């Protein structure tokens, strides 16, 4: 009787998740094995099962590899940069000398809660070649104006800078909380032994923070692989597809060209890739910190 009543609490939520998440994920796997396109959208009779052809076609498409490389660029440069900024800010906030901690934490976290579409408007203007503040500031260092969003060499760095600004506060707050759990006696003992700040950082702070740092890194890598919204609002994948990420490719294939079979294949490849990388990272982390 009571067991039956419990279902009244969970059944609605589970039903929604099954119908609007698990079912679409399973359908994506099936769709990726078909040639679902605009003709099938009009009449399901045009739908054919094609096996792994979407995947094989994808591997043979230069644009797919370009998207993979762009995404890797974003992850390999963006994640360390983002983590370094987060960690530096967390360390500063945690320093005993820090004043107005609450204010600084709020200020540094603010970009995380802002609306992406709105702050993209600001940043597109900051990046403006002629009137942008960034080129104006660089002018003082004697650097000629850069066409940030129009030059294929600079578009991805511009996206990375924007993403780091928008996101670093999130990890900063988690790392800051991790730092606060390290016991003060450890530092006092180190100071009595005459350890410098760098030595304390190297032998106390970083080892104690390592589990949190590992968790944050794994989540950030998985998140950065899903690069989509930033190029969507800033560059539409351009110029010359230099900011075309894997998910942006999926979006274009699916909702611009209506190749829904191909789009699903792209989504699955990315999912398997993220899954493999995450498992690998977890294994490495467990080896280092068997907990």
């Amino acid at each position, binding site marked *: 009787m*009571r*067991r039956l*009543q*419990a279902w*009244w*609490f*969970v059944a*609605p*939520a*589970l039903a*929604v998740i099954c119908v*609007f*998440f698990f*079912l*679409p*994920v399973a359908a*994506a796997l099936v769709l990726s094995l078909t040639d679902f396109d605009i003709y099938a959208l009009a009449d399901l009779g045009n739908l054919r099962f094609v096996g792994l052809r979407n995947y094989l076609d994808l591997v043979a498409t230069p644009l797919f590899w370009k998207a993979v490389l762009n995404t890797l660029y974003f992850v390999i440069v963006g994640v360390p940069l983002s983590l370094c900024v987060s960690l530096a800010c967390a360390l*500063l*906030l945690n*320093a005993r*000398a820090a*004043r*107005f901690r609450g204010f*600084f934490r*709020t*200020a*540094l976290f*603010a*970009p995380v*809660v*802002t*609306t*992406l*579409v*709105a*702050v*993209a*408007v*600001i940043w597109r*203007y*900051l990046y403006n070649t*002629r*009137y942008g*503040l960034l080129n104006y500031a660089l002018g003082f260092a004697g650097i000629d104006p850069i066409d940030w969003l129009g030059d294929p060499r600079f578009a991805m760095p511009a996206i990375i800078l924007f993403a780091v600004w928008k996101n670093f*506060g999130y990890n900063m*707050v988690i790392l800051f909380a991790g730092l606060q759990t390290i016991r003060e006696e450890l530092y006092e003992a180190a100071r009595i032994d005459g350890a410098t700040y760098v030595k304390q950082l190297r032998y106390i702070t970083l080892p104690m923070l390592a589990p949190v740092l590992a*968790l944050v890194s*794994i*989540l950030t890598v*998985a998140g950065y692989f*899903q690069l989509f*919204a930033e190029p969507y609002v800033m560059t539409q994948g351009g110029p010359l597809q230099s900011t075309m990420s894997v998910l942006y490719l*999926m979006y274009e294939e*699916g*909702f611009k060209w209506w190749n*829904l079979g191909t*789009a699903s294949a792209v*989504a699955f490849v990315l*999912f398997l890739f993220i899954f493999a990388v*995450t498992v690998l990272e977890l294994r490495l982390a467990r080896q280092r910190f068997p907990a």
Partner: protein
Amino acid sequence: MKSRHVAFVNGSLATIAAITLAPLAWMVAVSLMTPGEASAFPPPLVPARPTLANYRELFAHAGMGRYLANSVGLSLAVTLVSLAFNVAAGYAFAKLAFAGRERWFKLLLGALVIPSQVAMVPLFLLLKDLGLVNSYAGVIVPAMASIFGIFLVRQYALSIPDELIEAARIDGASEFTIFRVVVLPLLKPIVVTLAVFTLLGTWNDFMWPLSDQALYTLPVALASLSREHVQDNELMMAGAVLTTLPVLVLFIALQRYYIQGLMLGSVKG
């Protein structure tokens, strides 16, 4: 030495905070400039003659009032409905016995690794078949329950003492009465946390199957406006202020709850 250290730490924090907030401050400054004023070199930092003309223009001719109302209404609707679903389910996963509870929970936890975009294409087809494309139902219905929300509430509900619930059962209270009278008051902090998360997330989202302009929310409208008005920097900045200011104010007012949720949510690994 000591005072130099204090100056270094606080000077660094102040500098980083200034750089972080500069784009937001500049957004407000440009939104108060007269049309064309910001397209100059060197870029002006403060308006020569501050004016609210851009805001008036947005409300009078760009339909901002309607988009603002849409954003508020849709965010509140998604938040209220999803709170009901997620809080009930999260509590059940923590405290109620039902067949397959552990297996369901493991399945949900495992599903957290699947990027939501994997479901994007079939979800669109599903909504199309259900006739929900281009309606708020198409936004609200898939958002009614979230794995993250259930997980957040469950983690918090685990700390409710079983004795409280048992005592109420012995008194003859039904499970629904126990939930309403005993459990819900205890879950209040996490309910506020989840409400803030959902409100901010819904307000900021823009990847929705809405093509009818009358249904646009602020971010959707801003994205489409910025394609039409690439040159009108001052007008666009006013739109950006209107879109971000409400979420910033909400966050600052309730940040204690937001940060708590962020902590609970990040230990999911």
